[in-house]
């Protein structure tokens, strides 16, 4: 199903924020819509956005490639993005990253065997006083998880599983 068929209301609302002659501004919000829906940004969606905004597919692709919250490849359903920048690292973020990787049996950038979670390190998320922390990016949008321990990670993973089984029912 095309983006326009699936999200007519959202697209209209996004376009209404910008002057009609500068509708290219809508490219980032539209990409957020796709990223959330598909878990990545497909070629087809890039083509559709390009058409919708009267710009080239290359121009859309350049935006996708530049910003870290858009992904060109489908990976885990949820992305677990751990900040390991200086302030977080001063509060144990590197050790936390290591523990999470060991616990989930993945490397930095890897995805769990069940395809649920991709673990990756990211740059500062403005939560320096609440480290260790990570951000999850998935079908529920972008959420912050702060003051983290492995136990609390397990709680989060458990809640994902509950959502999953709920969906399947």
């Amino acid at each position: 199903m095309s983006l326009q068929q699936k999200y007519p209301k959202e697209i209209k609302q996004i376009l209404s924020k910008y002057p009609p002659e500068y509708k290219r501004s809508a490219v980032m919000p539209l990409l957020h819509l796709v990223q959330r829906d598909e878990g990545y940004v497909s070629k087809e969606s890039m083509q559709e956005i390009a058409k919708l905004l009267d710009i080239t597919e290359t121009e859309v692709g350049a935006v996708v490639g530049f910003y870290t919250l858009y992904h060109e490849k489908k990976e885990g359903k949820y992305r677990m993005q751990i900040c390991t920048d200086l302030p977080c690292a001063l509060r144990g973020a590197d050790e936390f990253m290591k523990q999470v990787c060991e616990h989930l049996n993945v490397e930095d950038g890897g995805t769990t065997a069940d395809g649920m979670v991709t673990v990756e390190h990211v740059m500062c998320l403005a939560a320096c006083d609440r480290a260790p922390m990570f951000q999850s990016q998935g079908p529920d949008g972008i959420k912050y998880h702060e003051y983290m321990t492995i136990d609390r990670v397990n709680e989060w993973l458990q809640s994902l599983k509950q959502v999953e089984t709920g969906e399947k029912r």
Partner: protein
Amino acid sequence: MSHILLRHRDIPDLHKFNVYKKNGGFSAFKKAVTKMQPSQVTDEVKNSGLRGRGGAGFPTGLKWSFIDKNKWPHYVVANADESEPGTFKDRELMELNPFQFLEGLAIASYAVGANVAYVYLRGEFWDIAEEMDKQIAEMEEAGFLGDKLFGTDYSLRIYTHLGAGAYICGEETALLESLEGKRGQPRNRPPFPAVFGLFGKPTVINNVETFANVPPILANGADWYKSIGTPDAAGVKIYSLCGRVRKPGNYELPFGSTFRQLIYEHGGGVQDSRPVKAIMPAGASSSLIVANDKVLDTPIDYAAVKAMGADLGSASVIVLDDTVDLKWVISKTLKFFKHESCGKCTPCREGTFWMNNISKRMQNGNGVKNEDVELLLNVAEQIQGKCLCALGEFSTMAVVSGIKRFPQEFNRA
């Protein structure tokens, strides 16, 4: 002392529309639109001595007065891209005292004659943006945003716009590019945004905290605001305190407070009671200051931190104690800047890449070679002063100050 910006710490539920309104909310905006000329509003902010809180410390009222009055429409953009490692103050303001920020944005828009304003939030602030859309709708419903406000001819709409993870978009011209739907790469200046900004139109861009200062300034007057702080920097500042302190967090203090007060009185002192070795007052882009008694007891404002050989920036204070290896610190900052360089200017793109490589080599356990230290300084010097925006410059700050001020850590003593 009650807070001027972090007022939600004194008033519960201040993030709720009715609570904010009941506590004097929107009266400054109403006063501006119904009783003041736009130029009077700008003059009041100019006289208050308010300086931009995003990092550069440029006088806010002066910035507003630069807007090109021969070219229309005008835009106001709030920089809510907060992404300097060590900074988390705008987030707290938007989460817990959002209406004060939005009211300030509305007042600024009236002052420069803008009928549309955008809030550019970093993409990770997804939940904040969702809440803010509701808050904006509440203001529209109550007649504080929309057409013909308070029975005048003035109209204003505010829209949120999410970035998608790029530090560089905190730089104002990169932010504008991003808001126009392009990669966030800085523009050449001049022309400045006051003449050629969003969609090529005159634009004022300020930080979230800067806007949050505006309603109390209009409500209480420029003289009241100027009576707080120092002659160099009026008013209060939110310090994001983090690193090796016991109680990291945001602390609102008048300018003229000291690092010792911040770290020990407010931040609870250093973990394990270790001594402070170095302070980075402006996050990862900061020079490292040797934390001696004189530095700890100096009243802080922009000029005072400059005299210490650093910048106050957005006051994201990272505290490093004597257990922290500064070679490791610069490996962290370099990794960050290498990742965040937008790639437009060759010295920054290549320089951050090579500095990161050299720094990794220093960390691999084979000891620090003097030729690597010299090479780092050499590359840093080739970046400085040769890039369109400050990111390239920022990437060299901790490196150069670290090597020069802590030579023993780089085997140079």
